[in-house]
């Protein structure tokens, strides 16, 4: 499925589920996501992780809601299954979507300005350097007998300075390679957006709506 449409579908359903209180729809979404993940060969270890973590959080949430609140058993069931919907649908999305394809699709299909698409990509490619920089800063501070925690302003200060340096350099590098903001672009790789994507998107949304309305009655 087209990555942009898949993202839109996932976010829209998650938003609806956050407000609706129909546990049968939640269970249906969980089952469908699970089947799709199995078809897409998501590893067993990942599936186990995606099950145990929400199981823990759902249980604690339901426990505190029943201890400290006045929630009906029906509402507790809705909340319990809701967290699984988030996690399973999110798992399905991240396990079947390549960030690079998603960015390209957002640029080509969702008309995200190219400066954002390429700005994001440029920065995301620095991920290993960013992690290494954090480690370097911590190590350098330790040599002077300082320990930097996640609440130390110094840590953030130094990382922000590095981020400012890098963004200057990257922006200059992109300009010198001929990147012009707002200029028309051609694409070496086009992300298809075909009728089938739209049918799938519309069909899935319709099914959820039908489920929600029949569940609410």
């Amino acid at each position, binding site marked *: 499925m087209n990555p942009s449409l898949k993202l839109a579908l*996932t*976010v829209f359903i*998650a*938003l609806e589920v*956050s407000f609706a209180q129909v546990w049968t729809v939640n269970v249906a979404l969980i089952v469908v996501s699970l089947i799709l993940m199995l078809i897409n060969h998501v590893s067993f270890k990942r599936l186990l992780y*995606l099950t145990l*973590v*929400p199981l*823990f*959080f759902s*249980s*604690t*949430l339901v*426990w*505190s*809601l*029943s*201890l*400290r*609140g*006045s*929630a009906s058993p029906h*509402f507790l069931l809705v*909340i319990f299954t809701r967290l699984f919907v*988030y*996690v*399973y*649908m*999110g*798992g399905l*999305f*991240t396990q079947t979507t390549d*960030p690079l394809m998603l960015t390209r699709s957002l640029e080509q299909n969702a008309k995200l300005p190219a*400066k954002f698409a*390429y*700005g*994001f990509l*440029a*920065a995301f490619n*620095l991920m290993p350097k960013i*992690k290494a920089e*954090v480690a370097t800063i911590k190590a350098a501070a330790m040599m002077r007998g300082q320990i930097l925690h*996640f*609440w130390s*302003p*110094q840590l*953030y*200060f130094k*990382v*922000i300075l590095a*981020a*400012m340096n*890098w*963004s*200057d350099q*990257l*922006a200059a590098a*992109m*300009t010198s390679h001929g*990147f012009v903001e707002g200029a028309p672009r051609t694409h070496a790789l086009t992300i298809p957006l075909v009728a089938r994507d739209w049918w799938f998107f519309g069909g899935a949304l319709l099914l959820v709506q039908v489920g929600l309305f029949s569940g609410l009655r």
Partner: protein
Amino acid sequence: MKRWHIRDIILVTILAIFMGVIFWVIGPLYTVLAAALAPFGLSPLANELLLGIWVMAGPLAGFIIRIPGAATLGELLGAVVEMFLGGIWGASTLISGVVQGFGSELGFIFTGYKRYTWSTLVLTALTTTIVTFTWDLFRSGYAAYHVPFLLLLFAVRFASVFVFGGVLTKLINNLLVRAHVLPNATH
């Protein structure tokens, strides 16, 4: 008003990645805290205590980049990073990212993107708390809690957002201003 250029976009993304890494690193801390509080039915408190760290990307980006939308974009990208690093909450992370970012953004909107002082931070912390709390009333079923417990949750959340999104952000900002790296900042 300043517009987005490629340098700002890269900067906000790098900041978001850094914050995303932090969000991700404190994930286990959250789990341990939630587990410790769970037997007493207090596990939502773990969320409230740490929420300030999760929402920090918003005010920090807003203070450093000072372009409309910086807080929202910073927080949203932080959520994207967390999601692809292996955070498990998926699409719900993205929605929370937008909600939290927009909550911080409101504080900057109310001050017209002109004042970057303590009062802006307090306002930002307040709008963030109110917006995210309203969201949790629905999403996490907070509306079903008894009122005194709800007030406790709200107070703890505000304290956390104020400490991390307010005090810590201001301290970082002070260092940056002293280093003269914020071009349009005044003392």
